[in-house]
């Protein structure tokens, strides 16, 4: 096997050679005949592990904050002020320009209906299923899929779930395309031809192969960036092993976001993916910034990748629960209840922290322990989808989020 450098040019050259099969791919066709149901875009990011809302958007204006989170954190918060009461975790300062443009906002003291047992798995199930606690264990589909089920005209590529593993959020009877940039195949031209040859007579395999190869090229071009190399390694074997290594890291957030942006610039209207690393039981001052940098990288990559489509886009990042109000003995926080939801996008009426703020006095905490949730995260998502997609409030309160009451409009969409 000869040593090969896979450059962007080579990849593009290969894409040209594949022109015929690409045109046959429903996911990759440049123009589809059917129009998408709406023009606005929604990106849902699941933040796994239970993000500590009180450390992401810090209520340093509360007298109790210094006692709960340490005098040094409270004292330094002023320089990262947002609105005179809340301050931003400095790890997210790269998003400050978005805040100033009204394209970044937060909903504080929010939670799902999940209470008390504080298990990640149950909490994430409730978050993604969008149901109440009573449905736990009987959940078969996710709220994003149920939303698609009530909208006519959904195509194979209207919604994209991005990442290696299945998300409950997008599971259900409505079609949702799946792709993980780290599943990208690197095939030699000969292997590609032979694959097409053996797949040809089996339509299921043939169509999936064409799409897999097309999506792989798209992912590899994204990974290549503007003019860089994809792989400098020797041959296909090494390239594939690199890919496996990448898969182990779960895919880089910016690559996932870039891939999402590329789909959203075309016919895709909804993208969903998840970010890990928010379970900060110890030394949170180091662990949380790491996770937040992923969120910042993903948000920035979305904005850069979406270009003029950013103006029609809302990004919603939500987590299964918040964490304890007080730091524990190891400089971290344990599983709690109320937390924060991060919102971004050009369609956002941002630059503000919306909250029915419960306060941080011990009696104001949930079970004298966690930030008291005063609003259901589902209500915020409901209002965002109501405005972005014109969905009926009754449908949102019954089919998409059964049993949820949307309440007053927080005014988060322009």
């Amino acid at each position, binding site marked *: 096997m000869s040593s090969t450098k896979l450059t962007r040019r080579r990849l593009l050259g290969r894409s040209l050679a594949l022109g015929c099969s690409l045109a046959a791919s429903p996911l990759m066709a440049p123009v589809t005949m059917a129009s998408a149901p709406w023009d606005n875009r929604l990106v849902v990011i699941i933040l796994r592990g239970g993000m500590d809302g009180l450390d992401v958007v810090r209520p340093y204006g509360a007298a109790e904050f210094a006692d709960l989170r340490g005098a040094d954190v409270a004292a330094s918060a002023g320089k990262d002020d947002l609105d005179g009461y809340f301050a931003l975790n400095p790890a997210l300062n790269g998003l400050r320009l978005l805040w100033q443009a009204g394209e970044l906002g937060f909903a504080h003291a929010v939670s799902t209906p999940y209470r008390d047992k504080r298990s990640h798995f149950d909490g994430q199930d409730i978050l993604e299923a969008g149901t109440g606690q009573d449905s736990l264990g*009987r*959940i078969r589909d996710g709220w994003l899929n149920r939303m698609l089920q009530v909208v006519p005209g959904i195509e194979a590529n209207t919604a994209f779930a991005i990442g290696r593993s299945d998300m409950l959020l997008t599971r259900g009877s409505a079609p949702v395309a799946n792709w993980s940039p780290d599943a990208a195949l690197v095939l030699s031209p000969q292997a590609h031809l032979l694959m097409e040859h053996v797949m040809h007579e*089996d339509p299921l395999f043939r169509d999936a192969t064409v799409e897999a190869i097309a999506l792989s090229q798209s992912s590899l071009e994204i990974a290549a960036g503007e003019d860089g190399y994809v792989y400098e390694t020797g041959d296909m074997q090494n390239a594939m092993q690199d890919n496996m290594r990448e898969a182990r890291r779960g895919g880089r957030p910016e690559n996932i976001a870039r891939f999402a942006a590329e789909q959203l610039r075309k016919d895709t209207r909804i993208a969903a993916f998840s970010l890990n690393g928010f379970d900060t039981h110890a030394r949170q001052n180091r662990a949380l910034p790491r996770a937040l940098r992923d969120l910042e990288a993903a948000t920035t990559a979305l904005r850069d990748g979406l270009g003029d489509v950013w103006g029609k886009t809302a990004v919603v990042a939500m987590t299964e629960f918040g964490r304890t109000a007080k730091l524990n003995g190891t400089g971290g926080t344990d599983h709690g209840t109320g937390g924060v939801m991060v919102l971004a996008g050009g369609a956002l009426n941002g630059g503000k922290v919306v909250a029915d703020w419960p306060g941080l006095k011990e009696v104001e905490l949930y079970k004298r322990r966690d930030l008291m949730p005063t609003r259901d995260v589902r209500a915020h998502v409901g209002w965002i989808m109501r405005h972005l997609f014109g969905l009926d409030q009754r449908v949102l309160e019954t089919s998409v989020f059964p049993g949820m009451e949307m309440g007053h409009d927080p005014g988060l969409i322009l």
Partner: protein
Amino acid sequence: MSFDPVRAEIRFGCGLSQGLPQPGSAAEMLDRLSAPDSMAEKFPIPGFEVTAGYRRDWRRARKLARKSKTESEREAAKERVSEIRREATIQAALWLGQTMSRRIFTADGFRERLVSFWADHFTATGRDAITRYGHAPYAEDAIRPHVNGRFADMLRAAATHPFMLAYLDQNISVGPNSKAAEKRKKSGGLNENLAREMLELHTLGVDGPYTQQDVRQLAELLTGLTVDDEGAFAFRPRFAEPGAETVLGAAYGGASAQLDDVLSVLDDLARHPATARHVARKLATHFVSDRPDPDLIETMTVRFRDTDGDLSSVYEAMLSHPAAWLVEVGNVKQPMDFICSSLRAMNLRPRHIPSKRARKMRDMFATPMILMGQEWGRAQGPDGWPEADENWITPQRLAARMQWAMTVPFLIRRLLPDPREFAHAALGGTLPETVRFAASSAESRAEGIGVVLSSPAFQRM
């Protein structure tokens, strides 16, 4: 169509292997299944008491870490927590290796396929860092010994297994008028999860003749089944709802709660005609086709009813039916089937499977299986893995299969066989001309083998 040795290995076994004899008849397949379980002996996996033991130690260490007074005690306890977790992870990698090795080196592939099928029928998964690996020991206890026995015995073993009881919340279900509920002055506490899934998934099927009232009554009857502090099965009468319950028109139990009442409802559900049809349809769908022949289902259903759920007889009915041997149907292999049949075709020795090297097991098998859509032993819901071919052959999942086929065989055996010979070994007489051509035209051995394994001819059964 009738019995064909190559089709038997591909469709009902674990795939073709050069070194292992194909069964000569359906009777021989069933004979092998009735013989002692040599693979369980050669590649052992422990029972659930091992998982329960890890969990006990892990919880104890975690408690110690929370309660300890000094920093050094806390650090030591936390180190112990990680150590137990590490050990459990290493063991789980070994169990994956053993499960794969059984499939790769067995002459009785039908047994391994049946274990997977029934473990999926009675799906249970664990949720914490330790029990997430409990599925293999659970299957070893509750499923494997019964795959060639009576359905009723398997139902009983699964429905009273601590892993299942915890998975479907039966361990926390308390009768609303039980002694335990009275003492805590709490009403409610009844959990219908196991009762509902038992009717919907394990026995009658979702179209079966039961109502919400039956679910509720069965849930009350099941109260008392729980898990003790050691992680073992226990029956606690003080959790049990007093009085008789009526399920599907039959009354069970009386004034005092008895485990026997629970066991008799399980036996009655196991022999219910709707259960016979549900099980027959599921077996035919899994082994033969996503759209099985109605007469095949009917024949298996009748055999189930006539033999009171003797599974060997039901398999015999399936294997002797012409519809089971039709060539054109062919389900897509699930990821575990795909990986193991690929390795089986490679003429390996047990030492080639790096069971004791957890990281290698993860990189070469566990992570690729996630990308293929089947995290080992961790189906997303109690309904188990989907059967429809369309679920497995999506762009992403097929890409993961192709990627695996192109790389991992080479990582296992640097000296790969000639792709032309390999194509014959993997597909035998079913080798299509297109695949034969592709195998002879590849630029490298790794690519040639990758193309053969990726071909629909190999990926279908």
